[in-house]
């Protein structure tokens, strides 16, 4: 079973994403901002992180930059999942070390397609 950390300041989005990912047999943890997510990754690194862009305390891009700069044995797959859907944001995310990018609104089919892209299902 793969583990997934859902990082989003919206409880509703986290709940929807959780339901979809649990259907694909993922073990789910949640964080409401980038700082909480960094703390979660300190104890156990998930296999994949579903990451929002705009969040309080620490945004998704800053979290990703911190995560990739941190020495770690395991490199988690990071999939941005955000309403920022222009080329500049997408390019910035990929340059910072994201593996895939989902433009909201998402549905089960898109999540599945992206997880297949990164080889997790």
């Amino acid at each position: 079973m793969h583990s997934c950390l859902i990082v989003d300041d919206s409880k509703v989005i986290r709940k929807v994403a959780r339901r979809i990912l649990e259907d694909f047999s993922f073990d789910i943890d949640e964080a409401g901002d980038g700082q909480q997510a960094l703390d979660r990754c300190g104890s156990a690194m998930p296999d994949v992180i579903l990451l929002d862009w705009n969040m309080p305390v620490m945004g998704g891009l800053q979290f990703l930059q911190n995560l990739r700069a941190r020495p770690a044995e395991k490199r988690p797959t990071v999939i941005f999942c955000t309403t920022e859907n222009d080329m500049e944001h997408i390019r910035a995310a990929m340059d910072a070390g994201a593996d895939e990018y989902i433009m909201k609104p998402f549905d089960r089919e898109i999540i599945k397609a992206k997880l297949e892209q990164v080889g997790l299902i």
Partner: protein
Amino acid sequence: MTAPASPFPRPAARCAAAGAAPALRPVTAAPPRSFPVYADLCARYSGLKFSEEKSYLLEARLSAIMRREGCADLDALAAALAKDPSRLEPDIAEALLNNETFFFRDRAPFDELQASVLPRLKAARSAERRLRIWSAACSTGQEPYSLSMMFAEERASWHGWGIEILGTDLSRSALTRARSGLYTQFEVQRGLSTHRLLQHFTKEGERWRLKNDIRSRVRFLPRNLMHPLPGGECFDIIFARNVLMYFGRERKAEVLARLRTALAPDGVIILGAAETLFGFQDLFRPAAGSRGYYSPTLDITRTAICPDSRGTVHPARGEHRESPIAFPTPNQRV
């Protein structure tokens, strides 16, 4: 073209995104009285089966035409169809089709193509340096464009080659969309990696357009697989995925025989993951080690319009053929 409507309702979010679609008939509802009219039209026009258990999709598929024609229900539209068949038949028959497709669908056939089929054909065609690929029933174009992206990404390896990709479908509206190369946010997120999105698309408003170098390698033509093919065509690879499964056995045999005539003796035909050619071994045999890949049998008399290994062209038997398509090859060089 691709296939008749899926028996499975689309997810709620996507129905909402589609906007005007009315509520679907309950799955348990009896087919409308006019169901046989639509099933017959589908069979005549596209050769595809529209079974009774899919009748609940009729309203959703035909709602736009019903509104346009001022028809209150399916039976009223059937009556209008009877009065003016030449005008309404193509519109209704095309609306009954399912244009479901996406970029790099199923992935494995594309991986297989790159790993084994293309290297073999590249060696076999090293003198003429020309490769012809047909995406039959390509719907809105994602399959032929996926192929075009593959060749663009291997540009150096195919330098100096003429790569001709033909996409055909019987749906005129699907082909119009295919030619535009313009896709929604939802469409570019299915099957397409973000790296490929950045590499091959530009954003136009809320939609994404394929760059010219990808579009210019693909030509689109209307074509009904029920009809005889134009003469003179010979393809090295034919993609015919997820379409044969919707034909009855007799229609399937006819279509396969046609595809066989347009396939080079050492070419391959690629079917969907759930499809087989069991029972048609006289036309095709499974290509070793490649699921969904089939090669023509060695009966050269069936190859009709494709030259054999000595370059001899065998005439077709009993089918009228139009002029072959002409690709503007000079500017298609990779």
